[in-house]
């Protein structure tokens, strides 16, 4: 009997959680000007709750190793300072979350190590809803990201023609801000189409927040915690719309680089990016 009660309690809290979520959406819908497309993607095609122990589930995830030299882009194309490894010190599934840890240590000629995992060749799709619940790291020069990169058709197409959808990027020195962006031909790097989202009376490094996109044939909607804050359409980009083919997911934690600048004496190491879940939905 006691056990049953406990179960009821757990279930009720989940229901209440959903209730809160429902209320939240209700508020969004209070806005009479709301005309953006919402949640058409209801078929769950990938769900990683990171409930295991050890390395990320290889059903979904690959590692990317090194400093980018082997890939022909030293510093990963952005003058980043970290060396990515597949060691548990840098990438570990534990306590129900994925932990990507950036460390300050001399390793293979780099002064920092960190982790980068991706679903290339394992979970790629055209369109859908991509969502993750993440607690961000913090500090000058820390650059966590949850993003999508277009398939390169076995090396025949290169960036930025392959397309890039940045669901969430953050500069660690801006703990209340994230950015959602697209990169494509004519609008890449510093000229990416981007919009920031700022939390009021809260920070991204003190608790988990949900980051997602709803990506359809002619739009990409960006949301944080259920708040839709931007829609990018072909009219918004200053070049060809290159988002009608398969994309895969990348989650990484960079140190230094053009986007966030270098870490300094105030940056506390190690830094952890905690991912509670990643979910991908497709259209019915």
């Amino acid at each position, binding site marked *: 009997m006691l056990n049953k009660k406990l179960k009821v309690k757990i279930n009720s809290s989940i229901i209440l959680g959903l209730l809160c979520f429902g209320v939240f959406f209700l508020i969004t819908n209070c806005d009479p000007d709301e005309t953006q497309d919402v949640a058409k993607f209801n078929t769950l095609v990938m769900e990683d709750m990171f409930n295991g122990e050890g390395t990320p589930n290889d059903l979904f995830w690959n590692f990317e190793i090194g400093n980018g030299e082997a890939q022909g882009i030293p510093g990963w194309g952005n003058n980043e300072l970290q060396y990515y490894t597949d060691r548990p010190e840098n990438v570990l599934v534990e306590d129900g979350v994925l932990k990507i840890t950036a460390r300050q240590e001399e390793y293979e000629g780099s002064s920092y190590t960190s982790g980068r995992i991706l679903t290339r060749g394992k979970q790629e799709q055209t369109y859908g809803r991509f969502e993750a619940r993440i607690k961000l790291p913090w500090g000058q020069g820390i650059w966590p990201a949850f993003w999508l990169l277009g398939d390169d058709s076995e090396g025949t197409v290169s960036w930025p023609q392959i397309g890039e959808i940045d669901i969430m990027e953050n500069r660690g*020195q801006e703990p209340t801000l994230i950015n959602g962006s697209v990169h494509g031909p004519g609008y890449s790097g510093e000229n990416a189409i981007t919009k920031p989202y700022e939390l009021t009376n809260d*920070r991204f490094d*003190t608790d988990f927040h949900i980051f997602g996109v709803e990506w359809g044939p002619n739009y990409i909607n960006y949301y944080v915690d259920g708040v839709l804050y931007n829609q990018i359409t072909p009219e918004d980009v200053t070049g060809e719309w290159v988002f009608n083919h398969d994309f895969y997911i990348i989650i990484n934690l960079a140190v230094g680089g053009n986007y966030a600048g270098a870490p300094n004496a105030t940056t506390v190491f190690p830094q952890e990016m905690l991912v509670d879940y990643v979910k991908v939905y497709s259209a019915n």
Partner: protein
Amino acid sequence: MMKNIKLKYWKTTLLAIMIMTVSCERELTDDIQIATYPSNGDIYTDAPVGLTDEFFVSFDPASGANTQGFGTDDNEAYLGTSSIRIDVPTPSDPDGGYIGGIFKDRGAGRDLTGYDALTFWVKGSTTATVGTFGFGTDFESNAYAVNLDNVQLSTDWRKVIIPIPDPSKLLQEKGMFIFAAGTQSTNGVGYTFWLDEMRFEKLGTIGQPRPAILGGQDQTAQANIDTTVPIIGLTQTFNTASGQDITVTATPAYFDFETSNPFVASVNDLGIVSVDGAGEINPETGQFENTAIITASIGDVQAAGSLTLSAVDLNVISLFSDVFANVPVDNYNGFYLDGFQTTLGGAIVEGGNNIIDYTLLNFVAIEFYGREGSGVQPVDASEMTHMHIDIRVNENVDPSDFFRIEVFNNFTTGSQIAGTYTVTGDDLQSNTWVEFDIPLSSFAGLTAQEALGAIIFVSDATIANVSLDNIFFYSEN
């Protein structure tokens, strides 16, 4: 069990209702909060809020505090029509050479547990640096005093954020604001600054608390039984929305202190460590344990820094220490106009701790013989057996480096003798404190020690940057 479930359910429902209410109506504020004491965070908008007309309490005029420079100004305001105006006097002002005091809640005090910072806007007539802004000083117990030191003004309005180290402690606070300002940064030229929109706020954007004791350093000390040692250098650091860290000094009442070995030392709420006993034999290791490690935390965050205290039973004659009472000395930086000496530095405070810091060292003295009729008496160390000294080399150490310690008896008199002991580079570590307990019998040539008057440190520039601490003579009882 039933009760717990019900309670949890109720709380969650309330949360849901709150979200709905706040979001759709945007009118209700924090009225739901049930507080024992008033929880109003406002201190000054266009007039003092919830304070009497006599809310400003100056520092004691006998200390030089000027009580004439405080008022309000209807010609300056960040918002609304009025601000607080502070005229900082020149040091020679007959009404007092500096200005400062507190804003005091003359009622029962306020419940500030729902806030995370004191914030206000400030504007200066010049870009002077104000010595202290803060809160928690009530001129009664001052239990929860928090200070933000050396705030540089702008000639435009700037927002100042002073984080609360642990809001849960401020159940009934009367010290709403403190400031102290002089003209140290303006070469004695007086200036004016204005304060406006002062309130305790729940910013929500303050995070990553990093408390520290002893300046964040792991320190060691020896202390006799039945003596006390204060834990100093207490700070709390937060990261703000701008990405900048803000560090405030905080009183011990915000911290929870802990001892690793109650047989040796205890620590009270005021951060005072009492050496209670000599320790005892650990039944597991068979070793006699006479050390206790004192640590602290705020909330569930461990503070950086610790004190490893060894209980001893020593006769001590201390020249420089935060633990033992020091005898008077002539100087900690005896320099000589001989054309050869390069050394700079002397006693400084580092993270709340007194240390001696030398740069460009080739040689330097600590003198305690009564230089130029100072009245300082030489030290009779006849009963002492050892010299203790902590050395931290603030640069790389090579094995060939050396740090020679020369102890003088009857310094500068006809019967002067000296004994020397050389610490080699092998015994030192870069940027790390190393403790030495040197038998006085190891100071070659020191045949008498009843009138010690100087210690000269010689490195011949092999070690140019070095810090020293805890210099004392002792013998075990």
